[in-house]
């Protein structure tokens, strides 16, 4: 298995592989938030773009960075670090937005998640995935699909539909606005 750190692919390489890869349930896109590795199933991932031109929405809680124009579609952008109770992402050269498609009610909704950098698309067989540890997980258990041990790193695999749950985010916003 390749080293997670060494084989960082470029965005365009990743975007290509997202297009061509059959939706294998065992393929994950790995990325970094600060110094922690995360992964998400590529079935939710549409593409990766650079962080650019995000229009902020007034009065929103911090994790809502705003919205961006994705070829004519207005897509909300979420700061995953804040979602996971980390400090806000500092926008740098490698900062990216992962554009995801999440089912909601009977539609598919497009959302963007800001991450510090994106690593690669890799195959993580089910048997390599362990249940989330009950201790030390600063991130809410319901966000986590499991943990994989790859080379020397722990990769926390996320549940896209929970991390970017429209209902949950709406209710947080609701409380903040009250």
């Amino acid at each position, binding site marked *: 298995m390749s080293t997670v750190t060494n084989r960082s692919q470029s965005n365009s390489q990743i975007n290509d592989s997202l297009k061509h890869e059959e939706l294998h349930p065992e393929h994950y896109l790995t990325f970094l938030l600060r110094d922690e590795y995360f992964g998400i199933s590529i079935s939710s991932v549409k593409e990766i773009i650079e962080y650019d*031109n995000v*229009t*902020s*929405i*007034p*009065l*929103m809680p911090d994790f*809502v960075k705003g*919205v*961006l*124009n994705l070829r*004519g*579609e*207005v897509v*909300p952008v979420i700061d995953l670090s804040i979602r996971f109770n980390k400090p806000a992402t500092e926008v740098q050269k490698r900062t990216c937005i992962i554009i995801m498609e999440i089912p*909601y009610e009977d539609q598919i*909704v497009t*959302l963007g998640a800001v991450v510090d950098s994106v690593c690669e698309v890799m195959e993580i067989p089910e048997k390599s995935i362990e249940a989330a540890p009950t201790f030390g997980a600063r991130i809410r258990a319901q966000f986590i699909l499991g943990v994989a041990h790859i080379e020397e790193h722990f990769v926390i695999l996320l549940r896209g539909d929970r991390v970017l749950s*429209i209902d949950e*985010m*709406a209710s947080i*916003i*609701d409380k903040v*606005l009250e």
Partner: protein
Amino acid sequence: MDMSEAKSLFFEESMGLLETMESCLLEIESGEASVESHIDAIFRAAHTIKGSAGLFGYDHIVAFTHSVESVLDKVRSRELAMDEALINLCFASQDHLTTMVRQLQDSSIELDFHAGEVLLEELNRYLDPAPEVTEVASAPVQSSENWQIDIQYGPDVFRDGMDPLSQLGFLSTLGELQQVRVVPHFKDDFDPETCYLQLFIELNSAVSKKELEDVFEFIQDSSKIQITVPVKISQQLEQQDVVDEKLGTLLVQAGAVTERELAQALHLHKTQEIALGEALVQQGVVSKDLVSTALDKQKATEHKRPADFQFLKVEAKKLDLLINLIGELVTSGAEMDSLLSQLEDDKISESFSILTSLLEQIRDGALGLRMVQIGESFSRLRRIVRDVSKELDKDINLVIDGAETELDKTMVEKLSDPLMHIVRNALDHGIEPKELRLYKGKPAQGQLKLSARHEAGSVVIEISDDGAGLNQQKIRQKAIEKGIISADRDLSEQDIFKLIFEPGFSTAAAVTNLSGRGVGMDVVRRNIEELRGQIQIFSTLDQGTTFSIRLPLTLAIIDGFLVSVANSKMVLPLNMVQECIEYHPSLQTHGRNYLDLRGEVLPFIRLRDLFKLSAVPCGRENIVVVQYGSDRAGLVVDSLHGELQAVIKPLNSMFKSLRGIGGSTILGSGDIGLILDIPQLVQFATNLEMQTCQQ
């Protein structure tokens, strides 16, 4: 067209016909219209449903509709009078039919077969003592006729195992084979396994053309079959007592043409652009004479067709695509506009403004396609008012005003539930029972009024009753009991009324099964809010209550006015913008947010503060004076950027709690602008101020 498309079409068509039936019945019952004027339409509705159902083999619907149709036929021929009992029976039958049709699309709906049978019995009692045998044939019964059948067999018929003998054999069971002529068309390169036969058959039979066609079902693709109509049918066509039928339907109904032949001819008609009658003749399906007879018949009924039946069914998706495209055109135009203004070329600018004006017309036209009259929604409520009034034994007169007011189609759909709920509420709790009304000195008949109108860029829908009105004390008490408010809370009249929208609130002693399926007024408010609308209540004790719903004309594209506030670009609906004035801090009076506008007090809101954007103004500020409904306010912004056309892109559902912003748009520069919802914004600002005052 595949089966499922055809079935959907049947469903939609039948539901439409059932609605027509219902409104006609309602008008007859209320005395608005005479039986004579509507009975044809009601009969036709039943007849068409029966015919179409027959095509799909929905036998239960056919059987039921057949009885309904027979009874209606008797009313049509004046053998039966449409008295109260019969009208009620018609309503009940229409209900049952509606359930049967609905059940086709939603198998979870339970069909009450027993109820259906009871209805059938009652219907049959109106018919002859010796009731007719239920007929399932889709064509009228004929006496024996001499049919001419001409079959040119395809070459592979033998190899395919389709022996003409089996067809002949079957035909002989359907009637009498008067004559059979077999004409071989041999070629020099004769192949014994290839079929070169042509058959001319004369069959005396009482069966329908469709049944004859079915005999040759399996060789339809390989062979050419022509079944010609005997002369008698053309006579029948002349006598056909139907109005408002298209040529094809007329011929089918007369038994001259089968549905399949019609479909083939229609295909020819569309792909080769020949007239339908021509296509039918070309296919050898009917004789020219028959077609002209039918055409004459059709012409005779054309002029009677009322103007409002000339509608087209259009797929909603196609319309949305079109509107999207137009939206792109509009954005593109905006970009062009800004580029051109830099050029400062008069001729080009003028030419472009002509183009823009044409674009606007197309835009308005396309958007207009999405608009439907609210009258449709109101009409559906008529039935509910009727049923509930009967059930509660209340005499209620429904008045509808402004039915032609147009709304975006999606809004109308989402409105039907809230409207129904409010109406039920008025019927149930609003209007008092007769005795109580008389005691109060009111007329025994209660008035319920539904109205709709356009007002300053919004649609206002009102439901008023002259009933008991809302009792502020009772509401307040109930809210305290339910813990919704504390006992010492001081509330205005509006606020008290608004309490009924709180979840879990109900002043009725008994929650009747009429007032919603366990949902309350809170759902009504939520639905209205989801439409970015507002609902207000006006009420006077013992006099009545009015629910007033204000909705934005949420078009896909709006004319907007672009401003910037701090780093944000915001768009205000142009129709609400009255004027712009420069803002000076000196304009503030008494340190509060009011200013003196030509003698009038104008409250203003600093958007920078409201939206908590960066605190440092960069230069001059401006006030945009807006009007919404009967209210005015000033919005303090930074720069003004002029008019634009904006394609509204709704914000993701997660932003639904956001007050004051109704959507977003992509500006010519590619940036995103936020579209302001003015009434919501003002409400938001007002609430905030109240909160700060209380603290």
